[in-house]
């Protein structure tokens, strides 16, 4: 008799604790629910805040980085002497490797008509080092800029680049506005 009493008391305590733990979980969920969102959030680079420090290439958990250079063609001047394509101290205005700014030759230069050239980024080669972005922003129109490519981005809980970005250019945004592509010609809210 005494034994069964003891057991039921222990059971009572256990059930009581279980219910209070359940209530605690409910409370945590309830408080968190105030900030709940049904939207998906992704990481995004603001090209207007970016200072082209080069950490995107080295800090991403992916190798090569999920950050790539994107070309806003509407802003491009199609220059022959491209600040994003050629090294400032290039020997010659040519496509020779030693004259190219890009360390992986990810920018392809194509002649269109005198004196204009088209520059296309090969995303598979791009490592997101922002050297071309710096060149283009300093000497050109700033049509080359970095964006996080969401096919590649793992959407980490905390972006390891955002943590180290000196200009705080990376932030979490609604997935419906995943990209911030420069220039008004593309929907800047690429749905």
């Amino acid at each position, binding site marked *: 008799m005494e034994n069964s009493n003891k057991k039921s008391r222990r059971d009572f305590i256990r059930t009581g604790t279980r219910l209070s*733990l*359940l209530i605690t979980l409910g409370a945590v969920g309830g408080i968190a629910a105030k*900030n709940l969102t*049904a939207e*998906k959030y992704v990481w995004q680079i603001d090209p207007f805040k970016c*200072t082209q420090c080069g950490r995107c290439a080295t800090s991403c958990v992916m190798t090569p980085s999920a950050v790539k250079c994107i070309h806003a*063609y509407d*802003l491009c001047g199609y220059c022959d002497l491209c600040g994003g394509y050629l090294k400032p101290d290039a020997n010659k205005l040519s496509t020779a490797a030693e004259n190219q700014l890009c360390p992986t030759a990810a920018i392809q230069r194509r002649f269109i008509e005198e004196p204009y050239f088209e520059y296309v980024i090969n995303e598979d080669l791009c490592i997101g080092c922002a050297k071309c972005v710096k060149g283009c922003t300093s000497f050109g129109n700033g049509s080359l800029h970095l964006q996080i490519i969401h096919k590649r981005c793992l959407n980490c809980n*905390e972006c390891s680049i955002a943590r180290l970005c000196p200009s705080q250019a990376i932030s979490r945004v609604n997935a419906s506005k995943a990209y911030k592509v420069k220039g008004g010609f593309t929907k800047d809210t690429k749905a």
Partner: protein
Amino acid sequence: MKKWIKVSLIFAFLLFSLAGMAQQQRFPKPEFGTGYSQPTPITPEPRALALEYTDVVILLIVLSMASYFAIRKRSRKGLLWLSVFTLLYFGFYRDGCICSIGSIQNVALTLFDPGYAISITTLLFFLIPLVFTLYFGRTFCAGACPLGAMQDLLIVKPISLPEWLRKTLGIIPYLYLSLAVLFAATGTDFIICRYDPFVGIFRMDAEFHMVVLGIAFILMGMFVARPYCRFLCPYGVLLNWMSRFSKWHLTITPAACIQCKLCSDSCPFDAIDYPTDEKQSKNRTWGVNRFLVYALLIPLWIFIGGFAGSKAHTWISKANPTVYLAELLITKPDVRNDLKNLDVQAYLSSGKSMETLVKEATVIRRKFYTGGWIAGGFMGLVIGMTILRQVVYRKRTDYQPHKGNCYSCGRCMGYCPVKK
């Protein structure tokens, strides 16, 4: 007069160049005569939201199956294949992200920072395993956690650790949890994700030191079974609390224990409690006195812990980039001339005043001070309780899994000769 013209010319030039800069069109886009059509940049879509909800559904299914295998079906094989699936899906396919362990930080951040929006998926990943554990024990660890699955599948020859070592190392997860919550709540860092030893293996890509850490954990795990789960996992702390009061739990024997001792060495995690030895049971008065002394010491432990935590807050808060930058600029003003320091240069060009920066840093540091007291006090409580538990004797007549520490992996069930 000449001078005046010069000045106005310079002015006009400046105005012109400024206008040009504002438009960001130093070189206007040409009009092409050859019918050139301009390509558009490719911007692939992020992973669809519906797939995130699929993950929640899969988690629910896996947890239900794990609980069924552990409690009703009593099938180690079922649990094993379930953990293989989890490893492949949540581990290698989903690249280890999203995971319940990391979700602690999102929940902590959203509780302290109303501006942080938490997604439904993350909140559910945090809550669902805890609720399941409250009813079925830690079946999450057995079947639904990719990190646990990884370690569980790589156990080769587990050795038994002495109790004092297990208890001492067992304090680390509490420390890790309190630091993780402190860092997340102050918006500093998500350390659980950053120092996840296995995520690099899931992604087959990580920084060098994380690769070394991951391999070290796997090698260690061959002999010390599930080292991360036992001596590091912060989510395991919460699961442990829940599991202690679970309604149902995996049992070694399907019927009554016959004390054959066959299962006594079956658990690689030393999570089986042996029957208490009547002969060795200590003097009751001695035990009660000890209990009272240790219980009265707990407030002291809490105070010591809190005091130590608050003293350490200056040092810990340096992990926050704002605090670090502010302190760097104050202690080493020369750093302003260091063009290689990107953080300082970016701050200087941002135009933010030193006053604002220091004000921000002070606010964060004050949070760390309060957080240091709370986290330290919590650690004091944990240490006090660990010591207190040394003198609590509960009479056991059977071989039972320890409800808090048992991962419900089901290895012991095969050792029991008793049939239903």
